């Protein structure tokens, strides 16, 4: 039966059991000596390593410098996806001929996983910043375009009629009617887009980068330092989470302002 939610005491007790149980199993496995500590670090080893990485450079930079480097690439790719995706989505929603022209090509390319663009990224940009930005763009672009387009197309027809009656030009109709109406959908798309973009970034940095958290992990893997790799994973998870939380607040704020 779907029982009622657990009383807080029981909830926290079980949560604690789950968390500590996991840590205990992990620690025992690490301490048992089956493998070297470099291979399977104990939980506290990972924590210490994390601290170390904040002060000692590894693979060229300290941890937060790597994170910043990754964020910069992500920011550029994401911004590009938004700058292209939103206007294009609006234009496609307003001008049907454009929709017919672009949609088939878009659908064909969409199915290619962003990571598959790595070879071309490497070919065209080497290890420059263009490579990761391209891959992030490929990951972040589809949700932005799709959500903008859908949001604009689903605008209640009465607003379009009102806009036409009031003599709005195509440009005004798109910017002052379609765009604001589509904002809730666009913002939802931005969250998905940011998530996919961040994931694509990680993939890109495993291969075509010379700095960043992905690069950090690759170097950690090369020197068989599991603790370093895990620190990288932790950093990636945390940053991804923060990005999502921020966008979620933005989404809530906008919904509140609209009276939804």
């Amino acid at each position, binding site marked *: 039966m779907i029982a009622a939610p657990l009383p807080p005491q029981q909830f926290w007790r079980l949560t604690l059991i789950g968390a500590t149980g996991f840590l205990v199993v992990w620690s025992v496995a690490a301490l048992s000596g089956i493998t070297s500590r470099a291979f399977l670090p104990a939980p506290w080893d990972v924590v210490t390593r994390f601290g170390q990485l904040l002060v000692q450079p590894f693979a060229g930079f300290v941890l937060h410098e790597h994170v910043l480097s990754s964020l910069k690439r992500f920011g550029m790719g994401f911004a590009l996806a938004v700058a292209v995706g939103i206007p294009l989505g609006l234009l496609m929603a307003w001008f049907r001929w454009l929709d017919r022209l672009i949609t088939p090509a878009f659908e064909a390319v969409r199915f290619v996983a962003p990571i598959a663009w790595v070879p071309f990224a490497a070919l065209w940009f080497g290890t420059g910043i263009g490579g990761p930005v391209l891959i992030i763009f490929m990951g972040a672009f589809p949700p932005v375009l799709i959500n903008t387009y859908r949001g604009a197309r689903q605008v209640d027809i009465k607003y379009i009629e009102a806009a036409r009656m009031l003599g*709005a030009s195509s440009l005004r109709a798109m910017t002052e009617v379609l765009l604001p109406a589509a904002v809730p959908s666009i913002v939802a798309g931005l969250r998905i887009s940011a998530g996919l973009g961040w994931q694509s970034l990680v993939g890109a940095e495993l291969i075509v980068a010379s700095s960043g958290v992905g690069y950090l992990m690759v170097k950690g893997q090369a020197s068989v330092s599991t603790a370093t790799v895990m620190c990288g994973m932790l950093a990636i998870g945390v940053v991804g989470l923060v990005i999502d939380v921020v966008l979620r607040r933005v989404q809530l704020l906008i919904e509140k302002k609209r009276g939804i």
Partner: protein
Amino acid sequence: MANIQFQSVQRVFKQNGREFVALKDIDLVVQDREFVAIVGPSGCGKTTCMRMAAGLEHPTGGQVMVANEVVTAPGPDRAVVFQAFALFPWKTVWDNIEFGLKSLDVAPDERKRRITQYIELMGLQGYEQAYPHQLSGGMQQRVAIARAYVLDPKVLLMDEPFGALDAQTRVVMQEELVRLARKNPRTVLFITHAVEEAVYLADRIVVMTRRPGTIREIIDVKSIREAENWDAHTRIEDVMDLPSFVHLRTHVWKLLREQQGEDPH
């Protein structure tokens, strides 16, 4: 001359491969500055008539002309007040009213003057920066009316504008519209299914039949209104008590009742 002319207007539409005749042989002239109401049973095509004058729909036969020009597309010269208000939820009251003025390339000072004028006229002072969702239905429709009037349009087209409001608000709005119409006479085509509303507001009433919609009868209200001096009474309930009002209302009711007895097509 800002008149509306329906010349032998027909409207046929296709659904699932079958043809339906929505409107048949509509011939009507709304004179300059005349307030004409169209009443009729649901689905008789009265809203369609208005939308054709607005340019949102087109006749399949005949033509609709406004100010002696054939209507092809919507525009601010034929302002519409929608039943569902259709205010932009993301714009303030002020910006909503201003929207159409920008299309007309009206200078900022003139815009401000006009908007302020209608905000006062419609009793919207203090709400200029409010958003539609913060306003009641009646207030929102006031904004929609202001938005239409501020364009100084050739004709005003109103599609059951008070249909979405509760009964008390409706009455208040009717009184306000009468005041506005007497003060600022314009060519108005007003669609409603509420008979009393039509008798109270209009100069002439067009009664339509069920689908296929044709004109059953056109009733002249203005002459009776002026002869019996309805405007001497400011409150709507006083007007509605007058024998001349009751007589007219009953006449229209009877015409509509006839429609209910007829077989559906």
